């Protein structure tokens, strides 16, 4: 049936209403705040904006955020690939439990995600005394921040890959094996190319979330300026000190990272549109 058949045509006012609601909602909830961030950041001019990043504490926060994100994303990418592969291609005891648990970080509050590490590795935590005796500190350090961020961003890559790999099944891998390819060759020449788009989305979303994580990191970081304050934490510190334009300047950079991530995704989609459509058969 064609889209324009009279039986399926909605009244014009209905279409107008839906479109208006969509656009207004997006503008009020999404676009306006984003514009505000950049407007506030640039209110005192470009000089003040640049000044905000001259501060060594700001630079430390940026370095820390990028470093934490890089490690967390790497860990979760490796984990996501392994988990998706295991779930899609093997039958094992506890498989459904794994699939349910993978979503857990989405549903629990990030504060709890941070707190569990304090309860495990804090000075009064389960492993606290042993760690202290061996002179290892996790809470209030880079390691703690990485742990909390990794927990919060754990589902992103796995969630993108699992349904796709389940749908594709293991026939192509089996075919590669009968053709004489070993495990690694099959993985890099067959499995990865088949999931590369989902993998890329997962990695990009994971990166954006890892850079922006506040709640879990706030609990384990200790907010030490120049040392354990990531960009989101540093924005809060500045804001609480009434350095509004500096706070918004750092915030705008964080927002920019997110926008760049989105732009990269869109550009890649446009660049490889043909290839994408070719490979979505079956």
């Amino acid at each position, binding site marked *: 049936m064609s889209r324009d058949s009279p039986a399926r045509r909605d009244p014009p006012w209905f279409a107008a209403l839906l479109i208006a609601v969509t656009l207004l909602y997006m503008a009020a909830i999404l676009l306006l705040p984003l514009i505000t961030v950049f407007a506030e950041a640039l209110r005192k001019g470009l000089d003040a904006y640049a000044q905000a990043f001259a501060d060594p504490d700001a630079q430390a926060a940026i370095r820390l955020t990028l470093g934490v994100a890089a490690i967390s994303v790497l860990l979760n990418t490796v984990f996501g690939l392994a988990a998706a592969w295991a779930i899609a291609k093997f039958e094992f005891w506890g498989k459904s439990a794994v699939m349910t648990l993978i979503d857990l970080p989405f549903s629990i509050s990030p504060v709890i995600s941070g707190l569990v590490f304090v309860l495990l590795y804090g000075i009064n935590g389960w492993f606290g005394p042993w760690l202290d005796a061996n002179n290892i500190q996790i809470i209030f350090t880079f390691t703690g921040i990485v742990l909390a961020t990794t927990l919060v961003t754990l589902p992103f890559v796995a969630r993108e890959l699992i349904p796709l790999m389940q749908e594709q099944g293991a*026939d192509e891998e089996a075919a590669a094996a009968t053709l*004489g*390819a070993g495990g690694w060759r099959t993985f890099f020449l067959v499995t990865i190319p*088949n999931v590369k788009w989902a993998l890329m989305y997962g990695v990009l979303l994971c990166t954006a979330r890892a850079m922006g994580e506040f709640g879990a990191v706030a609990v384990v970081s200790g907010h030490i300026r120049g040392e354990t304050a990531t960009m989101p934490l540093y924005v809060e510190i500045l804001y609480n000190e009434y350095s509004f334009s500096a706070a918004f300047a750092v915030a705008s950079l964080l927002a920019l990272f997110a926008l760049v991530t989105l732009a990269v995704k869109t550009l890649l989609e446009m660049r490889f549109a043909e290839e994408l459509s070719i490979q979505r058969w079956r």
Partner: protein
Amino acid sequence: MPLDISNIVKHFGRYPALKGVSLLAEDGEFLALLGPSGSGKTTLLRVIAGLDTPDSGAVRFRGEDLLAKPVRERRIGLVFQHYALFRHMTAAQNIAFGMRARKKGERPSSAQIKTRVEELLDLVQLSGLGRRYPAQLSGGQRQRVALARALAIEPKILLLDEPFGALDAKVRRELRRWLRDLHERTGLTTIFVTHDQEEALDLADRVALLKDGGLEQVGTPEELYHEPTSAFVFDFLGDSVAFDCTVNGNIAVIAGAPVPIVGGAYNDGGGVAHARPDQLDIALGEGPGVPVHVRNVILAGPDARLDCALDSGGAMDVRVPIEDAAKLAPRDRLRIVPRTVRVWNQ
């Protein structure tokens, strides 16, 4: 014996997929594994290829133990039911995959691979389509790419899983001829799985009929069709009808009519007689034979098909020459007497 499959047992959990299957294949033979779904035919194919490991049993090829080798060292070409082409690779790249995957010392040069790919594309009649992606090819073309890809590794044995399963009827028939042709040219020992008896009888040198994980009968298409060893084989290989009968020596008495028994395994007493719909005589009026009335007369075809309802309940197809059927009409009463039957009641 080139391929010697002996006593393969395979369970999936508690479900027995193969219950001790033994089978021999001659050099260059075209062998069909035929059976209904769940009969274990695909599992047997996967065991030979190495994708499933049997619980017990042996598979030998020219005396060499195949089960001891991992899949990738077996050099057995397998064409999957849904082809399993690498979707992000062109047809040519798909075909080249097996050659590129070889160890450094054994790997042909890029130029050699290129030439070989062209030859194989030619062989499967896809010259000029090497740069297409699987999604840009028709079902029949994809199947031929999968075949070329399997042949590229110069396999010792070629396995085909439901090679025509995903194709429409016309393409199926064309490919059947073509595949038989290709087999004659390559001379490869080929085993294919199918649930379609017509396909198996038409194409294979020998047919192995499986049922519930066991081998029911192995033989040439003629042997299976004309000398079935069980009612299952008889029913599976063609249309069949069944009658209650009483066996007396070599005669089955069906509704008062004595009918010679030409096959089966039978004792005196009650049983079920099996016949083909085209081995039935029809008669008008009173007398011995199974009473029916005609529901429909279908004349479109080489012979006529009478759709009959039995007085005792149920329906039966009867095939008769067109000229015999032309004078019949729905609601006519008939008596059916098989010319010959087979009985298994032991």
